Structure formats: C-alpha cells, structure tokens
C-alpha cells in the first residue's frame, strides 16, 4: 500500500535525533512489548508480514505520533483480535477495570516452517550484472517494494535465493516464494538533479517487482 510507512525519499523530517547510549530498552514497558511480541512469534501466533502490515495500516497520524513500541502493541492487539483470541474492545475493557472471563486459547501447531528461505524449482530469472526496471505496481495490501524505486532502472548486484513472499503471506494467501535480488540504483536515477554524487542505493526486491530493462 502507498502508506506513510513508505518513507524513503520523503522530505521535511529534519535532523536525525541524537540519543544517549544506554540499555537496549529506554523504558521497562518497551522491553515487555518486545518480549511479548517475540514470544508470540516464537509460538507461531504471529506472522511477521501480517505484523508489519498491521503497523502500516495504523492511521497515518498515529503512525507518526505513537512511540515505536506502542505501534508494536497496537499491531499485536489488532492481530489477536483478527485471530479471535481477543474480543474487539477487550483491552479497553481491561483498562477500564472490567475483567473478562479468561478463555484459554490453544496455540496453533506448526503453522509455518522456520525461517523465510525456501527452495523453488525454477532457476532465478536474473543474475548479477543484469539491467532491470521496477514495475509500476500499486498493490493495496502489503508489499516490500519501496515507492522511491518504482519504475526506476537498476542493476542486479546479488541474487539472494528464494524467500517467502510478504505480499501474499501477510494476507494468509500462502508463502508463494520468489527469488530476491539486491538491485543497485544510481542516485541520479532515483533523485534526478538533486542527487548527491556517488551515492547509489541498493534495495532487495522480489522477482515479480522486476522486469528486464
């Protein structure tokens, strides 16, 4: 989807904020959300692609204003509601002090194999050195094609193997593995006359995002 999360090349966000070095989590609740989310991933209760898409689907204002781990918590909540584990409004009810009867939920068994690398029968379509063009795709769902490379021409610099396709996996439409290629774009191709000198960007792109140049 063409959403606010797709930030590459946007202007107006100002300087990168500085921060003091410290522990990994700035506040204790952030660590708890991280732990909760990873525990759910570990049990097959969460799918990484659906999780990312749940964050992308937050209203744009919320996406920009919520702290990072609050977005994680919202995404976990939305996916648990979608899975029927939580009732809509159950978190609000608990916040308001109303308790809901605990219903024990059975975690699913072996929902997906581990990792994201998959074997596919076909040979990769492209090899390092091949010139490619990114297709003019505008899916309404999840995708990992950043908009700033759309319709741009680049060169394959690395073939990574085949991976679970986030575009389908996020929506429960299967793994549909595709080859992933690291494609390098010149700064001038991406940013025109405003480009900095000698500053190419390399982006990992799934096979169907690409066409031969």
């Amino acid at each position, binding site marked *: 989807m063409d959403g606010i999360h797709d930030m590459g090349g946007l202007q107006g966000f100002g300087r990168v904020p500085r921060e003091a070095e410290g522990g*990994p989590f*700035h506040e204790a609740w952030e660590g*708890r959300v991280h732990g909760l989310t990873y*525990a759910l991933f570990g049990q097959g209760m969460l799918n990484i692609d659906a999780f990312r898409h749940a964050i992308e689907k937050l209203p744009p204002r919320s996406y920009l204003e919520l702290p990072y781990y609050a977005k994680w918590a919202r995404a976990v909540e939305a996916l648990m509601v979608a899975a029927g584990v939580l009732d809509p409004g159950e978190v609000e009810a608990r916040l308001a002090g109303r308790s809901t009867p605990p219903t*024990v939920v059975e975690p699913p068994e072996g929902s997906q194999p581990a990792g994201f690398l998959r074997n596919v029968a076909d040979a990769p379509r492209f090899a390092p050195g091949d010139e490619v063009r990114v297709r003019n795709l505008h899916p309404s769902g999840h995708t990992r094609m950043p908009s700033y490379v759309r319709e741009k021409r680049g060169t394959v610099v690395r073939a990574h193997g085949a991976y679970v396709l986030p575009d389908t996996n996020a929506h429960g439409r299967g793994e549909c593995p595709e080859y*992933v290629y690291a494609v390098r774009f010149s700064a001038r191709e991406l940013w025109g006359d405003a480009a900095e000198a000698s500053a190419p960007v390399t982006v990992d792109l799934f096979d169907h995002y690409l066409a031969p140049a």
Partner: protein
Amino acid sequence: MPDEKPEHHHEHSEHELRAEALETLLTEKGLVTADAIDGIIRLFEEDIGPMNGAKVVARAWCDDGFRARLLDDATAAIGELDVTMLPEAPIVVVPNEPGVHNVVVCTLCSCYPSGLLGISPKWYKDPAYRSRVVREPRRVLSEMGLDLAPELEVRVWDSSAELRYMVLPARPEGCEDWDEARLAGLVTRDSMIGTALPRDPSEAT
C-alpha cells in the same frame, strides 16, 4: 533513560498501561508466560548486542580466511565464533574498502540485524533517518558527525527483504599489534550500521 520532558509523562503511562493490559490478557489466556517474556528481555539485555558484532569485526580484521567466509556467507561464518545469535534472517556483511563506505537503513519499517547486534538505536527507527539517508546520505552522515571525502562512493543498503545488512568497518591505523579482544573495543554499534567509523586507537584505552 526516562524522557525528561514532563509533558510526555502522561502519554507514556497511557502506552504503558495499554501494553500491560494486553500482556495480562494474553497471559491469562495461556498464550504467553511472564517467564518467556522475561527470558527474551534478559537475552537482549545481557547476551545479544553490539559486543557480539564487535567480536565478528575484530576476527575479520585479524583473519583473512574468516573475512572471506564472512563476506561469502556471514551467518555461517559467525556461527564459527562463540557469540549468541538468534536464528533470524540471514546476515549479509558489506565491507568498507578503499573508495567505498557502506551505510544501512530500512525505509519501510525497522529491519536491523538484531539477532546479532541487539535492539536498534531509536534514531535508526526515526522518520528522519529512514526518509533521508537514501536521498542525501552524505549530508545525513555529516550531520551525525561523519564527513566522507567526496571521492568515496557511499553505498546505501535498504533492508527491504528478510536479509539483514551489517557493515564491516575498515581497521583503523595505529592498532597493528593489537589482539582481537582489544580490537573489538574499537568497534561501535554505529560503525556496524555505517553512520560512524570505529574509535580512534590513539584515543581508546
């Protein structure tokens, strides 16, 4: 570090309460246990972090064979070392070399080699870094304190699939006779993201 701006206190406590309610509900339903969550927090607070990446870099500086294996298949090469690494996405190591500086970003979310380097810094997830470093990397790095010579090529890597990029910084001059453990002390988190260089050996203890 807690946020020092008082106007943010209310907002933070609201997020904290909501996260707590979510955790309590999912715990009551038997989906997670507090022990499992505690274990993951402890892993990231104690066992996983930039110190592990620093060991990898120091070994690569001392052992050309390891460096070659690291650049060929980083996940397998890192497995040779005694470091804790979560089996997440495969890691790809990109080397800084004469004429080339590398920097890593995730413009679409916050992908980061956290299985090796731990939790990413807050600025890595900030819209300013995500939006700008692909478009004006020299300017962003300069603002962050790293001025790159114009003749250097700056290669930006946008982590958009299930692969995680890590920069292999170049070994500084002035530490030729240092052992691996001492060298690892020069390697900072930011030098493995590419927004800084390793510490200057003459200023390191």
